[in-house]
């Protein structure tokens, strides 16, 4: 994975225990393109941080909290899950490419699971890069895409942010029915750096009546 883009992992320090997997710079020793930022709770992760990572050129962002139901601070992982799904403000901007975000809910002991899922995710993200590179750059070339198309097939089902997986591989109901994910994600791949709706910089869709006094 030499040419791959960096991937940022935002992880709760009580979830999958990655300490033994890190090098001195806080990257995964096995995959130095993956940088790990630890939080006291996954509930502290701001959607803004994910957007910033993608905007700065990260290929993808992995969010990792504890098993849903087992947040040490009671609700943190549910909060960030709901924010990613657009069910709780503040959420992700519409233009954010959800396919480049994966959320995992893993208990302290599930670091192997973390590695396996991350590898798969990186592979998907790389496929996206290739796909986008081609659709953006080869207008002139006579080559149609088929050669590459064989691989990216993997990406198709992951249009929604992958906010699934408890320790069993079945996505939870909340995942598959992610209502908010439906609108923005099906759009053709936009790059993460699309300027999009920058001005309204993430005003939560909540009651803004309190700010109306201006």
């Amino acid at each position, binding site marked *: 994975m030499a040419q791959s883009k960096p991937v940022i992992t935002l992880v709760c320090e009580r979830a999958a225990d990655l300490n033994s997997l890190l090098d001195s710079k806080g990257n995964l020793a096995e995959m130095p393109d993956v940088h790990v930022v630890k939080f006291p709770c996954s509930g502290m992760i701001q959607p*803004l941080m994910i957007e910033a990572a993608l905007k700065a050129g990260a290929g993808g962002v992995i969010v990792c909290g504890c098993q849903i139901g087992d947040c040490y601070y009671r609700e943190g992982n549910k909060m960030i899950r709901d924010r990613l799904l657009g069910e709780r403000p503040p959420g992700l901007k519409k233009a954010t490419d959800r396919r480049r975000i994966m959320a995992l809910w893993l208990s302290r002991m599930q670091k192997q699971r973390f590695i396996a899922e991350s590898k798969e995710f990186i592979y998907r993200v790389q496929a996206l890069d290739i796909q986008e590179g081609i659709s953006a750059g080869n207008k002139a070339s006579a080559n149609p895409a088929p050669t590459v198309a064989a691989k990216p097939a993997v990406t198709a089902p992951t249009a929604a942010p992958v906010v699934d997986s408890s320790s069993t591989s079945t996505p939870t109901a909340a995942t598959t029915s992610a209502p908010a994910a439906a609108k923005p994600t099906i759009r053709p791949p936009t790059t993460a750096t699309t300027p999009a709706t920058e001005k309204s910089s993430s005003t939560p869709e909540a009651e803004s009546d309190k700010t109306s006094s201006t």
Partner: protein
Amino acid sequence: MTSSVQNESNDNWLKQGYNHFIDIANKITLAIEDGINIAVTSKYNPLYYHGALPQFYLWVLFLSGLLLFAYYVPTIDNAYLSNRLINAWTSVQYITNSIPFGGVIRGIHRYAGDAMVLFIFLHAIRVWFTDRYRQYRWIQWVSGVVLLLMVLFIGQTGYYLVWDERSLLLTRMTVSALEALPIIGAPLKAWFLNGDTITNLTLSNFLFIHIGLSFALLFVLWLHYVRMTRPVITPPPAVNFVLVGILLLAVFLVPITSGKMADLNSQPNTYEVDWFFLFNYWLMSHMSLAVFWVSMTAAAVIATILPWLVKNVSPPVIPAEVVISKCTGCSLCYRDCPYQAIEMVPAPAGSRFKLLATVNIPRCSSCGICVGACAFDAIDLPQLPDANVLSEIKTFAEAK
């Protein structure tokens, strides 16, 4: 739990031993939970509803208790009123044998009580082993200990109410235990028996204690929940069905029966121990009353002050801080804070906004959920400012 092996060298062996024990206990707890997750997925893992389980059984107890109450007669005898003996024991027999499903309701009430105690212990052990009981959670812990003691005592009074030979023996054992107490012993005994000896008034007192304390539980539960936002008090329906199913299985497989009617002139001396509620009577009959009271009191006191006995296992809590100039008063952090640590107060004069978030320091867990909730960068954990996180992310993403 973060590794609790960060002890300074001057730690004594007791503390190290304790930390070691909790470390192992925590790992075992996690391993069990992982196993259950594999079997039934995290959504239905009963250990993730550890607080909701006793609460669920409490509702079952209230409901079945209400039905029993309709027919229960809290007296020893009515010899002065009629020839047909109507008393607590016969009314329980009547409920069990003559009222349709009376025996089932009685069984449900008994076994739901047992299950509640079982799940309270499970709940308490889980919050203990996973280090969820100290610091900003002390109110939950202390009110929890009170809840446990109350539930145990309520259960015991339930056993007196049946008024069979076991009830009589337990009542007498309680009286002699109370008599052994200096100074407060005599008044406690008079309160317990509602007089000097066992009379009809004694049973009405037992009934009053049983029901009155049950309602008092609701008040203590309010204390238990008051600092938690959205406490999880209902398990998912599927779990409820299983819980009721197990209960009914026990009810039909092991129906409840009473012993012989209590006779004040007899001296019953053996009884069947219900290990959920009556273990302290077992202890009582295996040690001197002085040892019994001292050890019971010590156990209760140690359980209560446990959150303060254990220190320095994890880093101190550094509360979140609001950046007053940035806060828009949107209340998102207030809604999402899991420990009710954020209060919205009127914004200072001259502000463009109506409200301002403030952190109630003793309640704050330093979890950072408010940081995740704030879209205005207006609340921060001093030890991990989100600006630092953002620049770390950007640096790495851009360097490649």
